[in-house]
């Protein structure tokens, strides 16, 4: 059963159509990525999904309940982690958590226990009673996420949670999201980092200019655009001779010789690499380096939109 279903979401700000007919669904335990550059419409889309922003049209249901800006009870199923850090600087982490816990109606008896659990998960147990204005940027980010987790929602929406985070904190955030997926939480994750989408997401939607350009698993997306693997061979000796020798291998889509290197396009590079190296040896051409580039979401994005994911 799908935890989230949304369809036909549209939002315009004056003349600018920020989100144009966005729709998708997420199943329990599934992590779904919205991958797109700045201004693609990611935040606007999830704001409508979380019932924060009024949509011009379209519908959202979470756990079978329709979500609009006027929904109250249904929003209990949603955890929302805003892109910009949203905590009270003059309150401690514990007080921030307690306030939102009360708003979400977590029973008093459970709340203190749950706050301790969340503080442990986000690694702030020792600093829980300090005012958050004394926290580092990474600590604030972790609390920002912790507030979204507090009430154990069935759908967790994370809006670019790793922006401005050091590599170590980033890794622990990503591990946390993977763990959530394993425990059955549906996760909606927006990012403009291709690697994060590839690592975390079961399915990814590529969004640009307010529209979803393509959607599917990483493999499906790559196949969709018919991208091939690239093998780059650094050669000592005649690159042309090697290229001519490789022409006999029919599985290779194209072979291009340049000064000191040979670039080969192929479907499934790893399977053919031993044969390529064997032919090089037979042709008496020395190989100084091998690089295999598999197509990724970055190249899918480039193919679909004609521009790079990051400027």
């Amino acid at each position, binding site marked *: 059963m799908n935890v989230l279903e949304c369809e036909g979401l549209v939002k315009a700000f004056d003349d600018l159509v920020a989100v144009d007919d966005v729709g998708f669904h997420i199943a329990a335990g599934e992590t779904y990525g919205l991958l797109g550059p700045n201004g693609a419409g990611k935040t606007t889309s999830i*704001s409508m999904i979380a019932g924060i922003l009024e949509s011009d049209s379209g519908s959202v249901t979470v756990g079978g309940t329709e979500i609009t800006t006027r929904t109250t009870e249904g929003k209990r199923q949603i955890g929302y982690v*805003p892109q910009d850090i*949203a905590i*009270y600087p*003059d309150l401690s982490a514990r007080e921030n958590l307690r306030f939102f816990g009360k*708003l979400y109606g977590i029973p008093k008896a459970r709340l203190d226990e749950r706050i301790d659990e969340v503080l442990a998960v986000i690694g702030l147990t020792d600093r829980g009673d300090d005012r958050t204005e004394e926290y580092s940027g990474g600590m604030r980010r972790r609390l920002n996420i912790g507030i979204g987790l507090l009430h154990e929602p069935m759908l967790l929406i994370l809006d670019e949670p790793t922006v401005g985070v050091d590599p170590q904190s980033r890794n622990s955030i990503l591990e946390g999201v993977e763990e959530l997926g394993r425990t059955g939480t549906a996760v909606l994750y927006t990012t403009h980092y291709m690697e994060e989408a590839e690592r975390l997401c079961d399915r990814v939607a590529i969004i640009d200019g307010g529209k979803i350009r393509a959607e599917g698993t990483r493999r499906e997306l790559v196949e969709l655009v018919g991208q091939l693997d690239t093998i780059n061979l650094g050669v000592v000796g005649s690159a042309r001779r090697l290229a001519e020798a490789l022409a006999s291998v029919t599985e290779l889509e194209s072979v291009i010789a340049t000064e000191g290197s040979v670039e080969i396009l192929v479907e499934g590079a790893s399977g053919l690499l031993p044969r390529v190296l064997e032919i090089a040896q037979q042709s008496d051409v020395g190989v100084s380096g091998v690089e295999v580039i598999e197509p990724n979401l970055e190249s899918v994005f480039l193919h679909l939109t004609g521009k790079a994911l990051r400027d």
Partner: protein
Amino acid sequence: MRAAFVIAGKDLSQRIRDRSAILLGLVAPLGLAFIFSAIIPDTTASFDVSLAYVDQDGGEISSGFISGVLPDIEADELATVEPYTDLDTAMVDVESGTTHALYVFPDGFTDGVLAGDGGSVRLVGNVDHSISTQIADAILSGYLAEIDAVGISVDAAMRSGAQDPTALVAAAAQSPDAVVLVDTEAASRELDATTFFSAGMAVFFLFFTVQFGVSSLLEERFYGTLPRLLGAPISRWSILGGKATSSFILGLTSMVVLAVATTLLIGAEWGNPAGVAILMISGVLAAIGIMAVVAVVSKTPEQAANWQSIVAVLLGLLGGTFFPLSQAPPALAFFSKLTPHAWFLQGLGDLSAGDGLSVVVIPALAMLTFFVVTVAIAVLAGRGRVLAP
């Protein structure tokens, strides 16, 4: 409802940590009330007093006052004196405040007194010029006391058998209440200086205190927490309700603490607690409404804070929180009624006159009208905008 209280509770704990609310809500008004009441012992010292009379009597006693007493008062520049022939014209001028207090000597006054039947002089005072009226009262009483003394000595002379043409005057002395004052409309309706400054500073700073509560909504946007509130399983009204509740509690607490503190520390007399409570509650609501309008029409939190301060100061000045309106030009007195401050102080003044609780009804209704109108404006102006993420 529950969510509104959760939000209000959070806001209040933030305000308590942020000292500026306590500073503006308690320390500043208390300090200023204390200073003002110490350096300005009484506000009557330099006031103009304008008196008038209508002499329908034309007898010895009335003309003794009019030509014997009043010219001296005028010569000493204690008051200006205006004669009227027509009672109606004179009454109109008292009502408008052109004249502060009017003596009316009715037809047959002197004859009545001399015949031993008693008589009365009417003293009509303008509501907002109680001090002038009290002065007028004192002048007349002094004169009438002298007549009394004259009467007694004549009486003594008569008993010794002497024939005196003033024997008739002596009759006045025989009736102990030969002359009574009636119709002093302006029962003291003004607060004493200490209470005035205590109440004035309390209502002046109320607007700053309330501003903290109202502006905390802008702060939620600034901290980025507004989207979280919008995403929470609570109604949007409870967000506004929470802000209104914390503003109300802040405002009312500062008023109550100030009333108690000025009563205990500098001897202010706020009057009937129930009446004071009604005035305070309506005043706090009016302040919330006005500050909400300013917040809603502002584009940024800084802009809101600046305009809220300007509005609070202007309304405070116009509303007579720094100086009593009773002696201000009539135009200012009129415009001051466009501020909740003036209604609040008027209500307290009337209450202090001991007229009973009913005197606070009109001022309270006036302030509640401010509340209703400004909240309506804020809701209309802020619709679809205030609670956008």
